[in-house]
């Protein structure tokens, strides 16, 4: 198979274009058009008035993490450390302990996610064999006044509910 060669016509070689001024004025006409369009009626701006108007989050959006529970309320996580192993930014810190509720032998006694280190890649969700960690809280704005409070503990992660219905989340590829 021969390599397909396509000669692209080089733009900007005519006299008028070389003169530059004509093209400058053309460009400036375009921007001026936008300026007056927005000046005369600023409801036509292409922006969202963010803190008041929130974006719609889809189920596939990777927001802040949460840990899920079984239907009887017990923690799904079995502290297998797969998320920690898979985490490219090393932001998950787990300590495991014995578990006696019959669901498994092992459960986390400490499950910390350092949100300052997290890059929200979602690898932890993909690695989880128990569907115990999800990023479906719909929380996309994570802010705080101190470094310490950016480390989420087991309780914080369990408390946050998911923002989507189960079917919607599953449909989203979760």
């Amino acid at each position, binding site marked *: 198979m021969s390599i397909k060669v396509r000669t692209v016509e080089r733009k900007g070689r005519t006299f008028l274009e070389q003169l530059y001024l004509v093209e400058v004025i053309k460009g400036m006409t375009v921007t001026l058009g936008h300026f007056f369009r927005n000046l005369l009626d600023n409801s036509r701006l292409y922006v969202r008035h963010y803190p008041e108007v929130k974006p719609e989050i889809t189920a596939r959006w990777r927001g802040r993490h949460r840990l899920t529970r079984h239907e009887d309320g017990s923690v799904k996580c079995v502290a*297998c*450390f797969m998320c920690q*192993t898979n985490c490219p930014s090393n932001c998950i810190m787990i300590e495991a302990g*014995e578990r006696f509720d019959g669901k498994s032998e092992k459960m986390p006694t400490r499950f910390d996610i350092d949100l300052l280190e997290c890059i929200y890649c979602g690898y932890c969700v993909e690695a989880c064999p128990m569907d115990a960690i999800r990023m479906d809280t719909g929380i996309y704005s994570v802010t705080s006044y101190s470094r310490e409070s950016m480390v989420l503990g087991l309780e914080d992660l369990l408390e946050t509910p998911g923002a989507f219905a189960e079917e919607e989340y599953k449909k989203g590829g979760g």
Partner: protein
Amino acid sequence: MAELVKLFVNGQEVEVESGKNLIDALRVVGIEIPHFCYHPALGADGNCRMCLVGIEDGRPPLVPACKTPVQEGMKVLLDAEHIKKIQRDVLEFELINHPVDCPVCDQAGECALQDYYMNYSLDDSRMQVAQVTKGKRMDFGCGVVHDQERCVLCGRCVRFTRQITKTGELGIVNRTDAARVSIFPGKPLNNRYALNIVDICPVGAMTSSDFRFRQRVWFLKKDPGICHGCSKGCAIYIDHHREKYKDDVIYRYRARTNLNVNGYFICDDGRLSYAGENENRQTSALADGAVIGFDEGIELVRERLDRARKPLMLISPDCSLEQMWAVQRIATLYGAELSGYSDNYIIDGDGDEYLINDDKAANRRGLELLEIDFSRAQFLTGLQHTDLLVNFNNDLFFGGVDEELKSLLDKTQSIAVCSHQLQVYESASIVLPTASYSEYGGTIINEDNVLQRFEKALFKNEDPKDVLEITRLLGGAINDAPHAWPGIKQSVACLADIDPQAIPAEGIKLQNSEDTNVGA
């Protein structure tokens, strides 16, 4: 060196040692034959059928590799279709009732079954019926926790208790898929080597209650080291890990194979002695109980040593050869008497014929070779006449408080260079923290005259200075461990030919010549 024989593996010629079976011989040249039940220390049992290979010389199509000694010109077949099929079939058979516990199983990551499944099988389960459930989390005693479901019935543990410890607490009961490893009712494991079962179990059926769920094994850095628990000097792996925002800590010791010293196993006391490296450590310099900077502490010690008329230095028998040499030099420098007194390290009747010794000092042979006096008489005389005792990490109360020494120590002004917070150092006016044996490198000689080298394994956030470094800061001329060797070689005849960089992993057996063996 044993005789070499040539044989063919998958048509390729390899040269291996004779007198071994196929598994051991081929492992040396980097060819792995999967197996569960065979262990070099326990011999071939041939029950797992995982190591079946083909030999093209008219034998039956499949023979177990563990039972087949190598022969000249042998043609071994490992990658033929029927071999692969039998491996897949054996794995499928083992996995019929094996629970998918990998996420919660401590063995995951160093599990033979897991590795072989990934390497040789990767088949989906065809089982339609429910799996057989058996006992989980069964306490077998001695810190061994058994999971019957995960067991592949290779019988290594059973053979271990029968052949090695000769206690025979374990047995396999019942037949077919009801078969399980069990203890006799009311008779749990009761021997001082029981935790080796955890090491030799190829799957996660045997777990250690001490290490259970503490860390996943793939996070652990596995550095070779030497156990300093007794004068045997068993080879170990130091498995340590630095968790995020935390310090480098040791999670467990495992036996490292060294046929010169300990063979394949270590004792439970030594295995659990890792905890001592993590806990109760002296981390800051103290002057009269108040925390001071390390450099400040060094200055104070120098001052006191300069002023002392008749200093006495006491060195720990756990120190490495290089440290002993460095302390010996610095004792000469300050005109101090040097003692290696350590009778308390000997606990009579604790040892056995296998791996445990009465003498808990790791490097007493070093003291002897360097001609450091460790007699009680010399130490007591020295202690009575000295005005300053410098104790280099010697726990004088190791086997219990010695009242006579204690009253003398309380009367003497003393400086302690110590790695742990212990009662013996309480009377010291200045305390300097120092590294323990996992935090420095050096050489030690065990009671059987085997010279072994070990490297620094742990790198703490605030790395403690080892004894040798402290002698340098006190004015000694020896910068690091290699610098000590020219002097050691000159003064110790039997070490004259040793190249410290070239000590093999299994150590060097020193010639026990009469003229060097003065202290003995």
